[in-house]
């Protein structure tokens, strides 16, 4: 029953009792008979008003609480956006401010002569620093840059990416097994930014090759719950459990990966690219056993 109907009950009850008493009363008792029913009517009206007042207070309190909660959620979302924007601007400034000093260092190294091993070390480290800051900035820009969408056949993309990896690293290429689910129908094409998606796929495949010296690398493509799913699984060194919560953080590198070169930006890039496509990436890993990365891109 609606709470507002509660307020009408005392009023109706008072009116009914008052009416009955008037109809049944004796004439000489008229004054009393009118006064008593009136009293019931008045009491009914007052009780109804009291119920209405209580309901109004409760409703306005609930609205205030809802308003506060939604304001808090909006403020949190706005704070996150503004924090990312500040982060992006900081990286752009850092990148910009490092350009001239790094150019000066590389020019000085070149003027000193490329044959000098010490200057060549200075030059290669300056280049590395420049690349790192540039990639950090570009990663932050990826969060807002417009996507260049086109229809992408994921199977073709997968085959190309594996072919490219096999060219760079024939031994890794020979360990790759591909399993594409085509029955009862092939995985439909997705609307995606081809360059970004292939960048993400290259990174995941590259990681599987980098962190597993031997053993198979399995690549699977299937459709699942309205998404295309690409899984890349390796039987490599895996990621220590303590590092798993941070694998997608910028510059994060697992404790057992120090001997392999890398920037710690690859998985952050993969996550950003998938998120921009409305998809997601999940990683499961057991140290010493291997890693499986699942990328989901929504269909249609």
């Amino acid at each position, binding site marked *: 029953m609606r709470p507002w109907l509660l307020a009408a009950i005392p009023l109706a009850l008072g009116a009914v009792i008052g009416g009955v008493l008037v109809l049944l009363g004796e004439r000489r008792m008229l004054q009393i008979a009118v006064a008593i029913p009136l009293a019931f009517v008045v009491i009914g009206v007052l009780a109804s008003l009291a119920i209405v007042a209580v309901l109004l207070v409760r409703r306005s309190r609930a609205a205030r609480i809802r308003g506060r909660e939604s304001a808090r959620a909006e403020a949190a979302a706005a704070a996150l956006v503004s924090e990312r924007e500040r982060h992006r601007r900081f990286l752009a400034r850092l990148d910009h401010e490092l350009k*001239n000093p790094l*150019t000066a*260092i*590389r020019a000085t190294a*070149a*003027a000193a002569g490329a044959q000098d091993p010490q200057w060549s070390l200075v030059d290669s480290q300056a*280049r590395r620093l420049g690349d790192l800051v540039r990639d950090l900035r570009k990663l932050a820009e990826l969060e807002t840059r417009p996507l260049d969408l086109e229809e992408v056949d994921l199977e073709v993309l997968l085959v190309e990416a594996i072919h490219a990896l096999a060219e760079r690293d024939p031994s890794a290429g020979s360990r790759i097994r591909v399993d594409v689910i085509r029955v009862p129908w092939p995985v439909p094409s997705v609307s995606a930014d081809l*360059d970004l998606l*292939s960048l993400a796929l290259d990174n995941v495949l590259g990681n599987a090759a980098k962190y597993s010296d031997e053993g198979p690398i399995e690549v699977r493509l299937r459709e699942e719950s309205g998404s295309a799913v690409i899984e890349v699984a390796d039987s490599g060194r895996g990621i220590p459990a303590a590092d798993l919560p941070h694998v997608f953080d910028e510059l994060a590198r697992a404790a057992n990966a120090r001997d392999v070169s890398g920037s710690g930006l690859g998985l952050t*890039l993969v996550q950003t690219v998938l998120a921009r496509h409305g998809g997601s990436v999940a990683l499961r890993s057991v140290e010493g056993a291997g890693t499986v990365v699942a990328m989901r891109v929504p269909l249609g």
Partner: protein
Amino acid sequence: MTDRTRLLLVDDDAAITTPLASFLERSGYAVRVAGDGREGLAAVREEKPDLVVSDVLMPHMDGREFVRRLRESDPWLPVILLTQVGESFERSAALDEGADDYLNKPFDPQELLSRVRAVLRRASRGVPTSQRIRAGDLVLDRTSRRAWLGARELTFTPKALTLLEFLMTHPQEAHSRERLLAGLWGFDFATSSRAVDHRIAELRRVLGDDPADPRFIDTAQGLGYRFIAPVVAA
């Protein structure tokens, strides 16, 4: 007077110009340094160089204004801009405003050297800068961004068309995938060079160009791509 090729280096940061000038001198060029666009214009008036290398962000008169003023009096003097902003549109804007090439800071001085040589070669060959250019029966209208092969109009994705325009305006030069990416895509992550391969494949498919026996786009082994057909004004 020297008979060496004369370069004018315009940048306000002496920490860059001093070693860079010394490096370019050692590489066989006669180098003069100017601290900003105004000094650069005065230096050109005083003694015309064969090529100008200029920074973009400078006090008094920045690189873009400098190139615009330079073009008023000397439309053909080759200019390489050293761009500061990482965005690709900034770099193509550098080309639109009359620079012959650009290099993003921080750059490898060896790369600057090869650009200097390439731009000087291009200038001596007289590669057309007109808006409508032709290579065999392939015609590209740079203003309307349309292309034809014989009588048939071709359809490209915007990126493929930008790549074709760049290759046709820089013919007979090998361009690394990284350079094409940095210049035309605006994202030059170290691992993303396949993006260029995708667009080259599209260009070849639409142009009917056989990679094994190319008429237009040749694969420069281990380096990148080269537009091999002679390009003339259409």
